């Protein structure tokens, strides 16, 4: 339904996107503010970034966060991809609706409930809390997001190549790695990235499930934010926003290019040059 831009549509887009982006842009600008008073501009400076490098607590927290995010994203991607395969491919089985309910409920469940319930689980299992408990908690809610992302990729999937491989006697596991996985790979990668950033960002669930020695970056940021806005926190936030933005844009360019390449390959393989 393209009808050319009307002033109303253009205004909505401009106002809407300014609303979405202005706060983040201001935060980034003020992280280069020389003045300690956060809202008074005192000239350009990178001193807050330099002082970050000397803040050992913050660096420790960042290291913990990266380890948690990396490990949980990897496990969540495996489990989430399996869950997506089950949802799309396994047909009906006993307990199927419970299964899909458990996949979709965490997406909308308030984080305080997820955090509290997982903490109580770890306590009742007598599990010492720390790195591993945060990692398990993040894996659990991230795998649901991965499942949804991979599932959407699997739904619009042409099964003829898989069937051909199986007819030619290829065992199912081999078919999965040689045919299915390469086709759904963009979804799997997007799922991994989503799991990684969800873990990177999470404050509430980590606060409940963490223990001594496993303070994550969002928890550190949160405890400082409660004391007020500081340019140092602006600098941390800018770095985080920067890393995530570059990651997302890079990934979307790579998958786009892969898709074009794949389409070209397929056309070549079928001998039908566009």
């Amino acid at each position, binding site marked *: *339904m393209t*009808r050319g*831009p009307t002033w*109303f*549509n253009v205004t*909505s*887009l401009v106002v*809407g*996107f300014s*609303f*979405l*982006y202005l*706060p*983040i842009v*201001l935060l980034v600008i*003020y992280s280069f503010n020389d003045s300690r008073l956060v*809202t008074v501009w005192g000239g350009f400076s990178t001193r807050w970034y330099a002082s970050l490098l000397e803040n050992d607590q913050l660096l420790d927290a960042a290291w913990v966060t990266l380890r948690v995010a990396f490990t949980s994203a990897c496990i969540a991607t495996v*489990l*989430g991809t*399996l*869950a997506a395969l*089950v949802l799309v*491919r*396994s*047909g009906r*089985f006993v*307990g*199927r609706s419970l*299964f899909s*309910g*458990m996949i*979709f*409920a965490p997406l*909308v*469940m*308030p*984080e*305080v409930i997820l955090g*509290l*319930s*997982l903490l*109580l*689980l770890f*306590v*009742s299992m007598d599990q010492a809390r720390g790195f591993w408990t945060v990692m398990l908690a993040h894996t*659990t809610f991230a795998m649901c997001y991965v*499942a949804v992302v991979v599932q*959407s990729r699997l739904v619009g999937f042409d099964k003829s190549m898989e069937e051909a491989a199986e007819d030619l006697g290829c065992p*199912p596991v081999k078919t999965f790695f040689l045919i299915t996985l390469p086709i759904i790979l963009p979804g799997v990668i997007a799922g991994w990235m989503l799991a990684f950033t969800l873990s990177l*960002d999470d*404050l509430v669930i980590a606060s409940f499930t963490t223990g001594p020695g496993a303070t994550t970056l969002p928890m550190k*940021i949160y405890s400082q*934010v409660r004391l007020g*806005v500081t340019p140092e*926190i*602006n600098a941390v*936030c800018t770095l*985080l926003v920067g890393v*995530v933005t570059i990651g*997302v844009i890079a990934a979307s360019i790579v998958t786009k290019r892969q898709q074009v390449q794949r389409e070209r390959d397929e056309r070549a393989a079928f001998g039908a040059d566009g």
Partner: protein
Amino acid sequence: MAEEHVAPPVRRGLGGWLLIAMPYIWLLIFFLAPFLIVFKISLSQVAIAIPPYVPTFDLSEGWQAFADGLSELSLENYVWLTEDALYWRSYLSSVTIAAVSTFLTLLIGYPIAYAMARAPQALRPTLLMLVILPFWTSFLIRVYAWIGILKNEGLLNQLLLSLGLIDEPLVILNTNIAVYIGIVYSYLPFLVLPLYASLERLDGSLLEAAEDLGCPPWKAFWKITVPLSLPGIIAGCFLVFIPAVGEFVIPDLLGGSNTLMIGKTLWVEFFNNRDWPVSSAVAVILLLILVIPIVLFQNQQQKMSEKEG
């Protein structure tokens, strides 16, 4: 999101069952079992111990101890919740704040989704990317960014003062208005995405037909565009409303001491008062409140994907 494309029953070997078992067992242990534990602890009493509640069940102490423990469980915490006005006022104000912010998000999100769906085809992927991108950046950071803007000496007040629109700074931070702004801002992409999806599919020829028959554009909008985008509106509103009810970070950082929201009440009960049984009871009731919209949402999603498939 909850698309159901159930394939017909298939013959399954050991591998097939293993495939189902792995994610299934994980979710049973780390998602379902924790809820049962929350429910059990909501029936326990607070105690000065580790863990800070009684009874604790230890099967190694034999069945008698287990049975004794069972008899110690009671609904006391729930009675306590109904007696203290703080709790039911928190629930009520959470639901109200979430409902009002959902409505505001819809008011702001609809024009954006509408304009996106009507933008030139070539521009749409970029616009979509621009809506999704904030979703990837930290929630905490996006909420934090508003503190610097809304403070009394913040950027918004500086701007308004220098323009001469106001004589003294507006008090926005630490009020419910800041909470509304925070929720609308944080959840806007959740509403715009499903709405855009249903608006983009809308058949333009219907509008043209209406126009040819002399229907004024605003009337065509109400009679055609709005009803046809209703699935997107409903999905988007659920995606904003449900998590907003239990929100903690936004009321805590942007709201004031008199901003009551149940997520914050639960947090305080747990971390400050260390009353695990009462916070569990708070969580159980919150869950009961949310079960209705969650089930409605899943049904709606299922119906939509059946229509497509």
